[in-house]
């Protein structure tokens, strides 16, 4: 039962991803081609420089025409628009994003995919750590709030939730930097590690040192929502009949709360937590930029500044893939936790 569900969800995700890539390719076709034609011009010009200088102007011109036509054919620019879109989309689906115009990978390569794939683990490192801490803190606080619902702690922490609700994470990052980096000089101002990076144990400590401030910022903003949510869901469940029934059976309160209540609360909490996580993907883009954390988000910054369209497109595709992957993962986890899905319906 569950396996069928899993496979179904994964296939669904892949199909949606493909559709989106097609839509993106159509939408941004014109821009991509602009970049392409510009680069072709450059390449041909470069070739022209290394030509035999004894050729006549007509010969040179003819050569340019020929080379351009060749390149156009190579990049399918001579085919009708819809064919071009399909070709580009299929490329994107196979993670073949072409070459960057300006940006280079750390090894100096121009392949967009290489550039992007270097950034992925850094983004994942930062955000997974923050999310992990947020979930634990959120669950703990939410449970405490639900137990003493309506009390002082509950009310004050709810105010905290409201305060950070509309607060930009990147702005808080700016403030944190202004305070902790320039006023009280505890943390470095950004980046992955110091230059040059230390070796051995010191490398990891240095990494943690650099991660500390961004993670701290993300946690300060992030865990309130989870606490608020957990509190509401758990409170709702505590009103249910089966909780009263469990108490009537003499089950101690601890087991009722952590066992019956939390376990039933797990699916909706996990859903909401992951959803809000995915929703925050956007703000995190800027966030990385503020801290110069060389992940996918920061790559958007650089690509926009340098106007490197292929990198921008590739990044968007990968971000979308990760996003959809996250949604599918969410479905799978939810299905696992909720026996109504895991085991299926009535016999």
């Amino acid at each position, binding site marked *: 039962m569950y396996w069928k569900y899993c496979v179904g969800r994964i296939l669904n995700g892949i199909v949606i991803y493909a559709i989106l890539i097609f839509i993106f390719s159509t939408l941004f076709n014109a821009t991509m081609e602009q970049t392409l034609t510009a680069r072709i011009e450059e390449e041909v010009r470069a070739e022209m420089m290394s030509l035999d200088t004894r050729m006549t102007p007509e010969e040179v011109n003819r050569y340019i025409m020929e080379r351009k036509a060749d390149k156009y054919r190579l990049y399918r620019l001579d085919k009708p628009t819809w064919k071009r879109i399909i070709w580009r989309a299929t490329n994107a689906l196979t993670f073949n994003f072409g070459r960057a115009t300006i940006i280079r990978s750390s090894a100096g390569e121009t392949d967009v995919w290489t550039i992007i794939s270097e950034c992925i683990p850094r983004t994942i490192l930062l955000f997974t750590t923050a999310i992990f801490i947020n979930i634990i803190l959120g669950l703990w606080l939410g449970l405490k709030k639900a137990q003493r619902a309506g009390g002082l702690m509950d009310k004050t922490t709810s105010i905290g939730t409201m305060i950070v609700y509309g607060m930009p994470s990147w702005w808080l990052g700016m403030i944190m930097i202004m305070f902790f980096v320039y006023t009280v000089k505890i943390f470095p101002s950004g980046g992955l590690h110091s230059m040059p990076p230390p070796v051995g144990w010191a490398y990891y400590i240095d990494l943690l040192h650099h991660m500390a401030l961004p993670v701290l910022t993300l946690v300060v903003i992030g865990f309130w929502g989870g606490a608020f949510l957990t509190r509401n869901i758990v409170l709702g469940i505590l009103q*249910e*009949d*089966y*909780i*009263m*029934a*469990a*108490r*009537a*059976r*003499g*089950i*101690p309160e601890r*087991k009722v709360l952590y*066992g*019956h209540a939390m*376990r*039933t609360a*797990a699916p909706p909490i996990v859903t909401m937590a992951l959803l809000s996580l995915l929703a925050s993907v956007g703000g995190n883009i800027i966030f990385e930029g503020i801290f110069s954390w060389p992940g996918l988000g920061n790559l958007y910054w650089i690509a926009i500044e340098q106007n490197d369209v292929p990198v921008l497109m590739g990044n968007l595709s990968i971000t979308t893939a990760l996003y959809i992957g996250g949604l599918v993962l969410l479905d799978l986890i939810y299905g696992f*936790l*909720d*026996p*109504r899905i895991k*085991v*299926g*319906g*009535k*016999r």
Partner: protein
Amino acid sequence: MSDYKLEVNHLKINYFTRKGTVDAVSEISFNLKEGETLGIVGESGCGKTTTVLGLMKMVSPPGKITGGEILLGGKDIIPLSENEMRKKVRWVKASMVFQGAMNCLTPVYTIEKQMMETIQEHKNIERLQAKKCIINYLNLVGLSEDIIRRYPHELSGGMKQRVVIATALFLEPEIVICDEPTTALDVVVQAQIINLIKRLKKKLGLSVIFITHDLATEAEVADRLVVMYAGKIVEIGTNEQIYGGKNSVHPYTQKLLMSTPRLHEKIKELSFIPGTPPDLIAPPSGCRFHPRCTEVMERCSKEGPPLIEIENEHWVACWRNRYV
């Protein structure tokens, strides 16, 4: 005194809400004999469920037991702490089959886990033996062994109700309280469950409190009846005394009986009781039924009638009652 399994004296339960204090259960007294099935009937909101929740000291806030005593096996349980209730009383001395079994089982645990948890919480026996006990009782209620691996949502309403009944019984408590156990089920399953309860009653010698608003069911299952209205008991009597109807019974009980259509009578109109149940924050003065009573006298609005024994084991709280 001590041949009563349960004795309730002048029990008072109030709900302290923002809008006012609700006088939900107003000084009621009744008792339960060994091996007897006592039925409690009444309209929705008359206090039946609150009363039995009170018996388990599980009245939900803002409700509180504000007076009286509940003697289980001769000992008053009201002063007991929550911990003592949990360990010694709940499920051990008295268990409960809840209203709406639809939602009484935790959806994320298997039947086995939930039943096992309950047993192991009260009895120090090892898994294998506990499992045997569980399967035994499941069979008793007519369910097969492989139910234990299922989750609640996989079972039908009737099956869930049986599981709940089995769970209520397997610690062999002295009293089993059934709060409208068949209300949420369809008629066929209802009949099955009622037959099951009757069988178990006989087989295990249970003392049962059975709540329902359906008089027909009550007639089948109960030996004695308690009729409640607006937080007060208006009549107590045996099956024959109340259903027999020769002697005068409380006007409310009469109306209840009349509004149940009979199979063998020709009825032109369904009779009903005009009006609605009263607001218990400010209940009517004197007899709480007097605004809706067709036999109301002047005295009824001034003084609340006491429960008087008009014949052996037959008590009525009405100024119009006549001694036999």
